[in-house]
């Protein structure tokens, strides 16, 4: 099962290798990792998506909490968080299918970021499921390159 870990860490160099090193050393597989600074410039928010059953993820959490630079670890369940991933994808286009691709992008509310005679670079953001789905739709036109950011996530607020 996939887990989304939201990890608050001290924002200074080396912390990233402390955290990611812990994952490689214990051979926990990282699906994606995204880091950015929070409203407090001294603190960064890392979002790490890991696969594993609950007991494995519990181990990961406890090991993370042992790192002096880790302030807080929260396991966000998919249903109670808003998660987003940004993807840039380059697909091949021909005159015959250009409008078709554009209308698919409209449905998905994806943005066309660049266009050449033979390619289209599309920008799409959504949760992982939507991103996967969108990429699947693009598959048949021939994907030439993909860049994905990895997921970021925040918990839903209750008022």
């Amino acid at each position, binding site marked *: 099962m996939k887990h989304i870990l939201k990890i608050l860490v*001290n924002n200074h160099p*080396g912390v990233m*290798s*402390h955290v990611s*090193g*812990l994952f490689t*050393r214990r051979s926990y597989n990282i699906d994606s990792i995204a880091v950015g600074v929070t409203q407090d410039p001294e603190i960064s928010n890392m979002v790490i998506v890991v696969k594993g059953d609950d*007991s494995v993820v*519990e*181990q990961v959490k*406890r*090991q993370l*909490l*042992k790192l*002096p*630079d880790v*302030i807080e670890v929260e396991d966000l369940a998919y249903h109670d968080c808003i998660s987003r991933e940004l993807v840039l994808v380059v697909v091949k286009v021909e005159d015959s299918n250009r409008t078709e691709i554009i209308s698919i992008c409209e449905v998905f509310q994806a943005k066309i970021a660049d266009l050449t005679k033979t390619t289209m670079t599309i920008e799409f953001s959504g949760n992982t499921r939507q991103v996967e789905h969108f990429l699947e739709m693009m598959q048949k036109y021939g994907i030439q390159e993909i860049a994905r950011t990895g997921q970021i996530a925040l918990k839903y607020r209750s008022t």
Partner: protein
Amino acid sequence: MPKTEAKISGARLMVELLEEYGVDIVFGYPGGAILPFYDELYKSTKIKHILVRHEQGAIHMAEGYARSTGKLGVCIATSGPGATNLVTGLTDAKLDSVPILAITGQVATNAIGTDAFQEADIYGITIPITKYNALIKSADEIARHFQEATLVALGGRPGPVLLDFPKDVQTELTSVRKADKLKIDPRHYQKPPIGGDLDSFAAALNKAKRPLLYVGGGAINANASKEIKELAEKGNIPVTTTLMGIGAFPGTHQLSVGMLGMHGTAYANKAVLECDYILNLGARFDDRVAKPGEFAENAVRAHIDIDTAEFNKRVSVDYLLHGDLKEVLKALIPKVNKVDRPDWVGFLDTLKKNHPLEFDDSTDTIKPQGFLQKLYEKSKGKAIVSTDVGQHQMWAAQYYLFEEANRWLTSGGLGTMGYGLPAAIGAKFGNPNKTVICVSGDGSIQMNIQELATIAMYKKGVKILIFNNNFLGMVRQWQELFYEERFSESEWNYNPDFVKLGEAYSIKGLRISNKSEIDNALEFFLEDDEARILEVMIPAEEKVFPMIPAGKSQKDMIEFSDTVRAGKK
């Protein structure tokens, strides 16, 4: 930040902080990138610096010092090769939870990252093997890093920390002598409150008919021997210890069943199979002890530890309590029933009688087991014993009993050959009035044998016992049992003359090979507070039993008597 005080150099500040902290001994080796620090150390009247012959020696000495005194062990190295020589020791200290502060020199900050002469990214290298580490970027940060590092090293589950100290930061002036705010969370050094439900925990223990205490190195770090004895005696609960837990409970106590695990006693391992409740006190269900899914599978399993990451890591437990072991036991003991368990304790007494530690003592050759029994008798309770890694280590664990904690120094987690001699030296510096014995093998001793010079230079009365089987004995044992006697690269065709080698350093020595020589040799070995080398020739085919083959469980234990029956003793 308080700016009133006069400015001093970073190196001066570091030395003053060490002094204020109460550090009176450090083990190290100088070099270019740490020279400003050494220059300040030269002026210190409070800190004695022990000059070693290899940085690995320095850190193992700091470990031996820390383990035998309960204090912080401090070691110093220069940048690059000096720092990387600490890597094995840091890993060792991490796995065995030893509080170590390593201070390394680093090239000047403007040269960092340029592949400068003697530059190594020791900060990056040691991330996975330290509890805390930092590259100090300015002299104003020294005080904070020092405070954080020492708190973390000794707090919670102890461990090694490293401060990497660039040369220009050592000479930079600062007036910041005290951190106004620590950056790390107090949970990394403060004692945690007791976590978990004491009542249901106690109830499960009270329900047990055949309980067993399984005590690890954490018990020694928590200084919980007194409480463990109280708990064991109140509930008449037999006690087994791990290799790291030796000494946490008196080895001669009637309720002691000795060490468990791969080379534990048969009765300890059988007790694990027979118990209906097992209480882990500061151990980690290490793979030399516990096979997940098969360890004490018929028992209720309970665990008390200061490190929550150890809960359910390898073996799942039914009850757990988080906290400092001493505090938790203090709270738990009043809730534990006073019970006599004549059946269970009697059953284990019978096991002890029927499955003792055994070896064949019928020849004139010296058997290490018998020799260690004699050594134990001659030095009973008084000696601090360090070991290297191999058969000799396991024999010492089996045949030398300890009444007290902090007397047994061995590399348990990492199994570091080369640990024994420097650890013994460090222990002797910390305990000048105690007998300190290093038990080693002809292989292991050669891994840090250069530290004989340190013994000679400081006239330290360390006793060095070398069991010489002209083999990497433990490797040979595995090859004999599991690789059809293909002794690939485990036989030595060449050993130095250890006695003569000792003489080269003015250390007196003796070699014996016949049983009749043991008594005199031990007298010579222990007679006064001088260093001695005793080389004991033993048969190469001697093996350590009982043995649970790697990856197997208590059920698969091979005893000495099994091999006799099979005609291959």
